[in-house]
């Protein structure tokens, strides 16, 4: 397990979020969240259902305009426009898979390359000299990515006909096609069996080894433990803890958020009493409640 050893490979700040707040009318979905992600780092984002994790992602990627706060990517403030965010270098996947169902696998990845190619309508209509070259180059890059995630043999299939696990892989390949510096994964293992989850872990490490920083939302605690250098916990829109996975897992506020306060715990002095066995309770709570419910809250 090479998880934490390469943490300090690069210490440049890739993502710097300061004071992001998102209000929907009277409801505050995300409240004053700060988060930094360094180069070559894998950061986990966990929290109970409805904690605002996906909303936070949507704020980062410009799908939502945050009520306040700024998002910096490599020292430039990002405008809240999804296509500009992608152009700047942040790519994402969706919690409920959002592939272009009626396009082929290869075409899906080619769409992902949109920001990294420049050929406009005139170039396409007149077949200017650069057109063929750029198209060929895009195809090669796309095929290389498909090979990377292990889908190159299905390049001509329609995306809708792929099995579930492969659709997730294709979404990751499509996101990688935009040559991001930061990849946001929204529950990449939801609905997967343990073997597929393992394969996804390997894939995430391989992506990190390409020099891409990763933020991952996940409910599978074992997955988070294996992968992440740092974990941030979001509860009711607020970031309550951030730190290495082992520390976060033992934090009583986190346990309380997932499992609730102990019933007898009425006096403040008594608060340190229920020291639960490490690992087990949080993982159980997560698995029972949250695995794989595709909620549609990113529109």
């Amino acid at each position: 397990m090479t998880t934490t050893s390469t943490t300090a490979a690069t210490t440049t700040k890739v993502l710097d979020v300061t004071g992001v707040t998102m209000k929907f009318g009277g409801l505050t979905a995300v409240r004053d969240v700060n988060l930094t992600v360094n180069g070559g780092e894998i950061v986990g984002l966990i929290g109970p259902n409805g904690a605002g994790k996906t909303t936070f992602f949507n704020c980062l990627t410009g799908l939502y305009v945050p009520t306040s706060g700024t998002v910096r990517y490599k020292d430039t403030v990002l405008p809240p426009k999804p296509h500009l965010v992608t152009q700047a270098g942040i790519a994402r996947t969706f919690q409920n898979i959002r592939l272009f169902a009626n396009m082929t696998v290869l075409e899906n990845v080619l769409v992902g390359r949109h920001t990294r190619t420049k050929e406009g309508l005139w170039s396409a209509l007149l077949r200017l000299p650069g057109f063929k070259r750029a198209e060929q180059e895009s195809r090669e890059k796309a095929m290389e990515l498909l090979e990377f995630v292990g889908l190159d043999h299905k390049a001509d299939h329609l995306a809708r006909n792929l099995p579930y696990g492969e659709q997730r892989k294709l979404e990751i390949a499509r996101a990688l096609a935009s040559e991001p510096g930061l990849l946001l994964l929204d529950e990449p293992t939801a609905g997967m069996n343990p073997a597929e989850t393992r394969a996804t872990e390997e894939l995430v490490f391989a992506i990190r080894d390409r020099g891409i920083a990763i933020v991952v939302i996940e409910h599978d605690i074992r997955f988070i433990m294996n992968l992440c250098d740092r974990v941030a916990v979001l509860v009711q829109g607020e970031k309550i803890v951030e730190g290495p996975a082992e520390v976060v897992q033992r934090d009583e506020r986190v346990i309380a958020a997932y499992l609730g306060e102990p019933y007898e715990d009425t006096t403040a002095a008594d608060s340190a009493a229920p020291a639960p066995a490490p690992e087990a309770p949080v993982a159980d709570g997560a698995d029972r409640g949250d695995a794989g419910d595709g909620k549609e809250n990113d529109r």
Partner: protein
Amino acid sequence: MTSNNTSPLIPLPASTARVVTLTGAVLALAGTFLPWTWTSAFPGDLTVTGYPGGLQVLTLVGAVLTLLFTLSGWGSPRSSEAGSGGRIRGLAWLTPGGTNSPVRLAALGVFGVTGYAIGAISYELGGLVNLELGGWIAGGGALLAVIGALALPADQPHDDDTDAWGRFRNAFSAPDPARAKDLPAWAEILIITAAFGIGLWIFAYGIATEYSELFIGFVVLAAFGFAAVLRAGLLKRLSALTAKHRNVTLTAAFAAAICFPFTQTNDQFALIGANILIFATVALGLNVVVGLAGLLDLGYVAFLGVGAYAAALVSGSPQSTIGVHFPFWAAVLTGVAASLVFGVLIGAPTLRLRGDYLAIVTLGFGEIFRITVNSLNGTSGPDVTNGSNGIPNIPDLELFGFNFGLPHDVLGFQLTRPGNYYLLMLLFTAVVVMVFRRSAESRIGRAWVAIREDETAATAMGINGFRLKLLAFALGAGLAGLAGSVQAHVSYSITPEQYQFAGSVPPNSAFLLAAVILGGMGTISGPLIGAALLYLIPAKLQFMAEWQLLLFGIALMLLMRFRPEGLVADRRKQLEFHETGQTDVPDDATLPEGATGVAKAGA
């Protein structure tokens, strides 16, 4: 679950059934050489012995088709006929898919045409007594052929407990043909050329039908014949070939289209051809907007109108309020530019809406155009368009000394005014086809399809949704303006009433959208075919003008129920609407690099 039951609808031994079908088809064939009626009062003169005419020719063609399909299926492995020793050599290629369902469809086609002819004769001349022996023989033969064909075993097995309707439908279904052996390239190209030659001939015949009885018979036979050829698997084979030789196919299609005006002796029919091209070109432009980018535009005809008005105003017409006479190329550019500007102006505020809202807003803008043009008449507004009088007396085009209004002799054939415009319009259609194909198979086209599929995901992939939608909208508008600038000259005069949302004369928004959807969204040949049908049928059946919209509606409903992907389906749509439950295994996996975009642009 699937049993091997292929029992026919009418229980007869398979070999008997085939003999009955053959006998019926031969009888129908022979009947066409005998007189069907005693008087030449019925159009087409069906009184001559030994020389089929009018509707008889259609029966003849149908009977030959039935004969060929029946013989082709003789002794095929699926027909399970006892004592038949192998298939007849040289005919097996006719039925690579189904063998018996094409026979059934062709026989029904013959029966339909002959039955219609008998009905029409007795109705128009006042009773069955007007039928001569030939009519009885042909009719009886057709009936016999249908009975025999229905007694042939089904091509695909059905469950034992399938109900009657299910068995009836099953009788007309057929398996897909296996992959064809590779022929030498020249042979494949020859096949494509021949197919387009036949297509042109059928099309020209349909346009040149001189009376509505013949046209109805033509439509009946064409529909059944098309279905029979489809079930026989020939179309699948052909589309595999055309996908392989795309440039040859395009060339062949345009060569066939160029030949069309030379096959027409009647001005009126050549004019229909030119108008079909205008309609089809606009439909193809709409296909960029609807088929690729997925923007439902219900006011598209306004762009045609803007192009036409812009070109008319600068055409030098004495009634034009601007007294200028631009040369042709400048007039066309003016038309395109005006439509383009109009498209951007309408698109910029409306394209922020999605789906149904966009449809309503574009519908509104389409009507606003017509009403505005009506009002710019000098009394309710400044005099720009002459209001409801429109701009008449638009002079004919002249290009390099070639006057489009005068007949010209080309290689011994006379090319009349509609023929000239037809060829000009064909050039523009070719341009639009090229624009469609090239834009569809590029980064821009992929972005459009991505927006159609899932706009949120598309923007998250870095696509500037608004800009690309506006680009699609403007491009579509520009293409419509191109067609409009020619339309103004072809039709001599333009009035606001030509550019309605729905009306009985085809280029209107509803018919344009119908042509795209009926033909097949996102394909090139689909809107062309759809537009041809939608123009031709009303133009040929003017006696039922009152019923036209009703029939149109019914036909549209039936088509959407049974073939929602349109007449020409792109591979994607086919999979989308007819979920088979099994994962798709593309059969063109061996195609060379660069063929992956085929699905999008169609044939």
